[in-house]
Structures are given as structure tokens and as C-alpha cells.
């Protein structure tokens, strides 16, 4: 199978140009034999040394955070931007669903705009005329075609733009998040159309923040991280690695948060015994993110300022919105206090914490058996939980779907 897109060591720099330098840039663009590579500090690398190839008929996904270069990559492949370095070969007719309805003129009718937009996307007048009926039907805007486009809602605008673009009959379709606009019904129609397109052996390059969408449609996925290709591979492997990295980054943010002093309102009690620190251990190391089902240990560091014979330690988990998930204490577990003095460490271990993906806050407390608080620390730490698939609620048991009989899915889950 031959390649539809082949990118080798692709790089794209944007110049950071102050107004005073503009004339110098202009002069160099006009007169220098080759465009000078921007000097250090002058350039922003949107793409750096990105290599990949997409086979004909393949659905290829691109994921990454904001500013990772996804859109730049798409624009380079679409031929809108030219790469600063490296080489790019694109075989076949490309349609880019980047900004739909580019070139729509607000003052003139939807019908005329279909023809103009089609011409901009490279169709001849005859080709557009042949497809006109299908375009209108797909957009669902038959009653509005004689209206000037300025009277369209933004959803209608995008629907007409998508309808034209998808009917240009491209060999390679570039899609950038456009499915996020428009209503649910239209989004389904677009996806159905993209499936037809793939079934016909065409090539898809899909840029999306929706990892589920990428997992569902793509054969391979490229993860861009600050302009560099971090991983290319089967969708599940890449999206999992991406999720993990995002969670790690969030965990790092949590850890920094832990170090900040807590506000008074979230802590109360007589302070005869004090909770000096609360830590979360996941699989033996201190961290504040975990995959659902990993073993965790909550550790309290406690100091008693006088010897106590009546004490209970408690841990409770709740969501940032205050929904309680779970709480327990040493009294409920049947421990009868005898003596607490000096410093001590108390651990609560869960061999498998099966929380649903999301954010959680931890309350830790030491109080008397009757409930008089010595030190109650609300939301003392927070952590995040990730999981392979999504679900609603708080609980995330091990699970698997199965089926027999007259049911079939498009793709078995990887």
C-alpha cells in the first residue's frame, strides 16, 4: 500500500517579530537567497522534526494539548502553511475541514455561496452543479438557500460549510475539531459520512481533543507534545500514554498545591493533637494521581502535645463538589484507644481503590470517641483518578461487556 501522506523531519517556525523588526524581516524575505533561519529567541517552533506517514485508506489521528502544534500540522498538510524545514509529500486531492465556510460572503445567498465555496475548494462550476442537490440535502438547509448567509445561525453556517467540503470528493480528508460544532443530529450525520468515506478506501487525518473519537475511528495515532512527535502507534496505546502524562502533570500540580498552607476555615479543633501531614502513596511511591484499581495508602503524620487516652483517626473522601464517597475511622473499625503520645504515623491501606475517574479531596481527622475534634483537616490533599473507559458515578468496579446472538459492533475494542 502506498502512502497518502509522508512527512519527514517536518519543522515549522513562526517568527516572533516586533514592529520595529518588521522592515528588516521584509527586507530579508525579499532579498536573501534563502530565507534565513530565525535566530535563537526570535522563533517559536510550532513543529520540530516530526516524521510520520499515513497509508492510503488509513485513518490517522493526531492528539495533544493546546499549543502542541496539531493545527499547524494540519495546515501544513493542507498546503495553507509551508514547512520551514523537512519534506512533505501529499498524494491526492485534499479537503481540509479546518474552518468551515471559508470565503462565505455574508451578503450573498446560500446558493451562490455554495458555488463560490466549492470553487475555492477546487471544484469546477459543472462539478458543483452536479453535486448541488446532494449538498443542500446534506446540509438540511433547503428552505434557506436563497437567504443571504448573514441571516444564518452559526450552526447553519457550519452545516453548509461542512456539506460543501465533504462533497468535494477528496482522496484525503483533514478534520480539525469541526465535529464539535453543530447539533447532535448533524454531528452524527457527519460521522456517518466520514465512515462512508473510510469504507470507500479514502484517507482520514483527524485532529481531536476527543480521545474517544480518535480511539473509535483511527487506525493509528500521533501524539504531539510541544511540536514534537512523542509517540506514534495503535490508538489505545497512544491515548493511554497521553492520559497518563496528563494525569502526571495534574498530579504535579496537586503536589505543589499540597505544599501551600491551608486556609483556616478548612481546619478546626482543640489542637491537643495535630495532624502535621497527610500523604498519599500509590504502589509504594508518593503521588497524587492513580489509575482506578491501583493499591493506595493514606498516611497521617500526627503529633500529640499531651498524652491522650481517647482518640480516633478518620479518613474521608469526597468530590470537589462535596459529594461524599467513602469515610471510615479507627473507632468504626473496632480499635479501642489506649495511649497516644509524641509523634506517630497512621496508615490506611486499600489494596485496590476503585473510584470512578475524576478529582477527589481527602479529609483527615483526629478526635475523641464522642466526636470532639482535636484536629480536623478538611480537603487536606487532593488526587485524581483516571481509567481506561468512561462511566458515570463514583464507583468503578472491574467490568467487561459480552454479547451473543444478533448483535455486532463496528470494531472490537482494542
Amino acid at each position, binding site marked *: 500500500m502506498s502512502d497518502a501522506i509522508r512527512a519527514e523531519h517536518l519543522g515549522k517556525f513562526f517568527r516572533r517579530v516586533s514592529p520595529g523588526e518588521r522592515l528588516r524581516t521584509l527586507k530579508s524575505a525579499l532579498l536573501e537567497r534563502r530565507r534565513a533561519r530565525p535566530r535563537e529567541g526570535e522563533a517559536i517552533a510550532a513543529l520540530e522534526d516530526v516524521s510520520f506517514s499515513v497509508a492510503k485508506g488509513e485513518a490517522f489521528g493526531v492528539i495533544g494539548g493546546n499549543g502542541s502544534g496539531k493545527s499547524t500540522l494540519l495546515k501544513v498538510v493542507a498546503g495553507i502553511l509551508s514547512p520551514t524545514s523537512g519534506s512533505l509529500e501529499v498524494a491526492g486531492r485534499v479537503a481540509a475541514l479546518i474552518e468551515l465556510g471559508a470565503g462565505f460572503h455574508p451578503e450573498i445567498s446560500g446558493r451562490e455561496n455554495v458555488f463560490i465555496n466549492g470553487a475555492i475548494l477546487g471544484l469546477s462550476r459543472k462539478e458543483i452543479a452536479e453535486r448541488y442537490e446532494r449538498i443542500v440535502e446534506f446540509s438540511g438547509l433547503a428552505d434557506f438557500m436563497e437567504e*443571504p448567509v448573514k441571516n444564518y445561525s452559526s450552526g447553519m453556517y457550519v452545516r453548509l460549510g461542512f456539506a460543501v467540503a465533504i462533497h468535494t470528493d477528496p482522496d484525503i480528508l483533514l478534520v480539525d475539531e469541526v465535529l464539535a460544532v453543530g447539533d447532535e443530529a448533524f454531528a452524527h450525520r457527519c460521522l456517518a459520512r466520514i465512515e462512508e468515506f473510510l469504507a470507500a478506501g479514502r484517507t482520514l487525518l483527524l485532529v481531536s481533543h476527543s480521545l474517544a473519537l480518535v480511539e473509535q475511528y483511527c487506525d493509528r495515532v500521533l501524539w504531539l507534545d510541544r511540536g514534537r512527535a512523542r509517540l506514534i502507534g495503535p490508538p489505545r496505546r497512544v491515548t493511554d500514554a497521553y492520559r497518563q502524562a496528563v494525569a502526571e502533570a495534574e498530579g504535579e500540580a496537586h503536589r505543589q498545591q499540597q505544599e501551600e498552607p491551608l486556609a483556616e476555615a478548612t481546619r478546626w479543633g482543640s489542637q491537643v493533637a495535630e495532624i502535621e501531614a497527610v500523604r498519599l502513596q500509590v504502589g509504594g511511591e508518593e503521588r497524587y494521581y492513580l489509575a482506578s484499581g491501583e493499591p493506595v495508602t493514606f498516611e497521617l503524620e500526627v503529633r500529640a502535645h499531651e498524652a491522650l487516652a481517647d482518640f480516633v483517626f478518620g479518613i474521608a473522601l469526597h468530590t470537589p463538589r462535596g459529594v461524599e464517597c467513602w469515610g471510615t475511622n479507627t473507632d468504626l473499625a473496632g480499635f479501642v484507644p489506649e495511649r497516644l503520645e509524641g509523634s506517630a504515623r497512621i496508615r490506611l491501606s486499600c489494596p485496590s481503590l476503585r473510584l470512578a475517574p475524576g478529582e477527589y479531596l481527602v479529609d483527615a481527622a483526629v478526635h475523641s470517641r464522642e466526636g470532639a475534634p482535636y484536629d480536623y483537616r478538611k480537603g487536606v490533599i487532593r488526587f485524581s483518578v483516571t481509567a481506561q473507559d468512561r462511566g458515570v458515578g463514583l464507583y468503578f468496579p472491574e467490568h467487561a461487556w459480552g454479547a451473543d446472538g444478533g448483535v455486532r459492533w463496528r470494531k472490537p475494542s482494542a
Partner: protein
Amino acid sequence: MLTTFRHILRSRSLLATLTVRELKARYRGSVLGFFWSLVNPLLLLGVYSFVFGMAFRPARGSAAEPYALFLICGLFPWIWVASSLNEGVVSLATHSGLIRKAAFPAELLPLVAVLGNGAHFLLALPILGAALAVGRALGYAVGGLSCLLLPVVVLLELALLSGLALGLAALYVHFKDLKDIVANLLTLFFFLTPILYSLEAIPVRALSLVVRVNPVTPFILAYQQLLFYGQLPGVTVWLQMLGAALAACALGGWVFHRLRDTLVEAV
């Protein structure tokens, strides 16, 4: 430079579509539609005829009589020059959405400005023709068979304006002062082009020289020769027009080609 013009040639049907879009959009929703495009030239014509033909009559030589007819032959082509360049210089910036969001041949945009205003010029030609017919009926020796060469001059002017608009539009993306510079230069050049007066009527030699080197001058002279005097322009005028048109295309095409890769980012 040739690449630029090759791109243009390849997408000529898109160019036509866009020009028609521009014309349609401009007059959509106005009652008199494209007649507005005639109001401004006629207004200018009336004002200049009144000021220089009646209110005070400077010595301009008898060559420019009847004055209103002389004026119209130079004024209409000039309005094409001025409006094309004023619109052309900002054309890439105005339609930045197109070149940033679609793989679109950017060189078409300055040309749309030139062609759109060229269409206005052509639509105003019947007025010019009617005026010449009235002049002949009144016994003046204006017009005649020489008018048949008009398309050649129009094409040469089209080439001149296309080249200038291409270069200016690409430069403007990097250098925003250009818009104001162009607007002011056009005002200045209006008076440095023999539109209100005939070339022979300039009393100062140095000034006459400046007017002669103005690249628009041979075009206006050619229009006046063909339409007003009913004569064929001399070889020098033809060569000057050809030279100016080729130079503008070469320079404009080259500038555009050099800056092409920077346009999408800078616009």
C-alpha cells in the same frame, strides 16, 4: 514571477467567480445597485468641468476643447487606476480569512480588486460613448474609428494595474503604512497626470518632465488620443505603455513570489 502568473492562469475560473462575487456583494441590498458606481465618476466630472471649464478657465491650450469631453476620456481610466490600487493594497488583509483557512491561491485577491473595478470602468464606457456621440453631433471632431483600438489599451492598463496591485498587496501585509502612502501618492499623481490639462499646456519644463515620466501618463495619453482626438497614439506612447505594463508585472510578480511564504503567517 512566472510562477505567480501561472497560478493565476490555472485558477482563472475561480478568479472569475470571485470577481462576480465581489460585484454582487457590493451592490446587494442597495436600491440603485451598480448605478452607484457611475455616480462618483459623473460627480467628479461635473465638479471638474464646472471648476476648470466655467468658474475659472486657466490657459490649457485650445487642444482640450470641449473640456468636459477631454476630461471624461482621462478621468474614467484614472478612476480605475485609483480604485484598483486603493482596494488592491489591502486585498490580502481584507480577505485574510480565505488565505489563512483554505489552501487558496492568494495572488487572486489583488486581481479581484483590479478586475472588479475594471468591470465598473467597462460599464461606464457607454456613458463615455454617449458623450462622444453628442460631441460629434455638435460638430466636434471627437472619436472615430481609432476607438476600435481601445481594448488593447484596456488590456495594457489591466496588466499595469495587476502587477502594481500584486506587489503592493504583498508588501502591505508586512508594512501597514503602505495603505496611507498609496492613498496619498494617488492623490498627488492625479495632478501629475495630464487628466485635467493637456500635456502641452504645462508652462514649466521641469514639471512637464515629471508628468512625462509618470508611468500612468502614456495610458491617459493613449485614451485621449484614441477617444478624444480620434488619432492613433505615437510609437513612443505604445512603447511606454508596454514598458510600464511589463515592468509592473515583473516587479509585482517578483515581490509577490518572494513574499508568498510569509503571507499566511503575517496577514
